[in-house]
């Protein structure tokens, strides 16, 4: 993540007055599709299937031969509510960063359908390994959104108990969590549990060796893991062409498990495809790669400036495919929600934003001695020694000030 933080900083501790601290860039041919040297064993899958879509940008439901979701109006409203509240929370967090309350915020703007659709496809007993952008998935898992803010405010490195909601901590080192998910899923298989494990990662992450190794381990041990790649077209400033020259979902075949591309801005399609992949995992059929084709509508993080590297037109085109808008169109088209619903949701959004604002302003800074906690579970004499020395050091100021 890119971080040049503007968060408010503390002051030097030492009181003595005289001691103040100063305290799309393709190279030639890169995107070219190479022909096989003579045979039909070409790298390019010539007839790449369309991505799965069940709801068009215009809000029309469409059929797919293999995937379907039955939905009641209530379920459609629930999905809509999830996406709206997630977007509102996200916007509020961005605002809080601008106000200096957070050091950084990675917005999920535009990826609500990919996250809510996949998050809602899971059972409580399933287990999720997110990147740092899965605020919508966290929402579905029941993680209180205010807990997500701590690490971006700088009061902790992850403020929730992964086991309370089967939602692991955010992982910042790109791709690393895909192996954790695979190992966890290997354990699930050993336990004989019918649990699916979901590893989220980005299009950029697909280039990391760890992700490839996760594919290999998952395939060899037939681990019940869903590799859920949100291809939001960008890895900071690099377009997808810097990572691959064929669609990402095709990578799975070469490791021996199914890969599928879904319209990541279509919450119904994501729900259907993720449900199938999770069930595939739970029933002992092994891993699946789901590529959710979506778009990062905002900056990479609040530190980023996308105007340096991408065109307005691209953004505008994707705005027409907005995931929330299209579900709203469906709700309206099917009269599945009345005005009261939208009004209530507005009020609920405002209340959520207010709660988030209030909670951040009352979030306590950690105590200095917290540095010495939790490095080890079973203790370490050096930590004890350093803790004691630091306490003595701190006490020396108290002495000075006391005098």
């Amino acid at each position, binding site marked *: 993540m890119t971080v040049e933080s503007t968060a408010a900083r503390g002051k030097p501790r030492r009181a003595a007055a005289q001691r103040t601290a100063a305290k799309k860039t393709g190279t030639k041919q890169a995107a070219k599709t190479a022909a096989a040297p003579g045979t039909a064993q070409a790298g390019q899958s010539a007839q790449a299937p369309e991505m799965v879509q069940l709801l068009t940008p215009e809000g029309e439901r469409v059929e797919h031969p293999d995937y379907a979701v039955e939905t009641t109006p209530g379920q459609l409203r629930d999905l809509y509510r999830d996406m709206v509240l997630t977007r509102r929370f996200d916007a509020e967090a961005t605002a809080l960063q601008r106000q200096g309350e957070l050091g950084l915020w990675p917005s999920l703007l535009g990826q609500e359908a990919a996250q809510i659709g996949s998050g809602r496809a899971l059972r409580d007993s399933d287990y999720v390994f997110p990147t740092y952008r899965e605020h919508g998935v966290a929402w579905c898992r029941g993680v209180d959104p205010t807990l997500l803010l701590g690490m971006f405010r700088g009061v*902790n490195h992850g403020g929730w108990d992964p086991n309370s909601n089967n939602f692991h901590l955010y992982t910042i080192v790109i791709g690393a969590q895909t192996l954790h998910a695979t190992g966890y899923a290997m354990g699930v298989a050993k336990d004989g549990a019918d649990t699916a494990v979901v590893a989220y990662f980005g299009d950029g992450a697909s280039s990391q060796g*760890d992700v490839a190794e996760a594919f290999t381990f998952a395939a060899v041990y037939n681990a019940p893991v869903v590799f859920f790649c949100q291809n939001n077209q960008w890895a900071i400033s690099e377009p997808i062409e810097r990572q691959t020259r064929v669609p990402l979902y095709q990578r799975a075949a070469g490791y021996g498990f199914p890969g599928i591309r879904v319209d990541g801005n279509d919450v119904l399609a994501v729900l259907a495809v993720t449900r199938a992949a999770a069930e595939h995992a739970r029933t002992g059929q092994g891993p699946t790669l789901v590529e959710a084709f979506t778009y990062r509508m905002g900056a990479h993080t609040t530190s980023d400036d996308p105007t340096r590297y991408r065109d307005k037109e691209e953004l505008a085109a994707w705005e027409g495919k907005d995931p929330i808008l299209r579900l709203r169109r469906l709700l309206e088209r099917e009269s599945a929600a009345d005005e009261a619903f939208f009004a209530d949701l507005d009020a609920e959004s405002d209340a959520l934003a207010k709660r988030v604002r209030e909670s951040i302003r009352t979030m306590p800074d950690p105590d200095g001695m917290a540095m010495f906690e939790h490095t080890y579970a079973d203790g370490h*004499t050096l930590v004890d020694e350093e803790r004691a020395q630091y306490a003595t050091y701190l006490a020396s100021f108290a002495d000075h000030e006391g005098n």
Partner: protein
Amino acid sequence: MAAEKMALAKALTSSLRTALDSDPKVLVMGEDVGKLGGVFRVTDGLQKDFGEERVIDTPLAESGIIGTAIGLALRGYRPVAEIQFDGFVFPAYDQIVTQLAKMHARSLGTVKLPVVIRIPYGGGIGAVEHHSESPESLFAHVAGLKIVTPSDASDAFWMLRQAIECDDPVIFLEPKARYWEKGEVDPSGIPGPLHAARVVREGRDLTLAAYGPSVKTCLAAAAAAEEDGTSLEVLDLRSVSPIDFDAIQRSVERTRRLVVVHEAPVFFGSGAEVAARITERCFYHLEAPVLRVGGFHAPYPPARLEEEYLPGLDRVLDSVDRALAY
């Protein structure tokens, strides 16, 4: 089980066997740990007896081994991962340093990572490149890891058991040149603390601090020195993170001189940390600077040069002479 004399490698096998026996969550994983029993046969027979679900041949990918071990630990397992040789741990370095070491702290203590990484290390076996290195410094600097290394069969047995029982990640360094050294192992005994140093030979004139393969070298040096009338104390540090500085301090306060010996390069090696801290703790006791004997600032050399490269008897005694000359 009665006390028995066995090679260090066999003591490790026996230790793994009792761990697998006593806790169904313990797993053994790595390259070639199954039918082959590992290239040093440390896991010999384990897959046969505990099955492929508990003794797991992995794909050839060290980051994958440690990354999935982390996931297994999160699921409640206690994986004991084997890295085939010291020089092959580095593809897993990111997973070890940024994930395994930090995850307990990152989670504010809510998740535990009881992962043991077994690594045969050190030189002296006439091997090709990457098979003789001593990477302990590269892990010791990283908070969140514990690092231990036995020097004899009994410690091999007990320290591995203790490492597996520990709720923190442990890098377990096995002195491969000593795999075939025999020693008494009493599985009914009661082991001392995992991270305590041990005086393996008492002496008056100078302390030799060492660990793993260098302990034997230091004992030989002490024996040789005795014939010259010099009395050397030999301390087996056993643990590189944490280091038992109290034990070194106690010894140095008596002998007033210290030489640290390890195979890893001296520059930024364990000897530097011991020298710095012991000099701070014993500034008025030391009659000579703490001296260090170890590898040179060069890649581990071809086998025909390793005698020259390794801190052998002669180089140890040379430093002893230099320290005594102060």
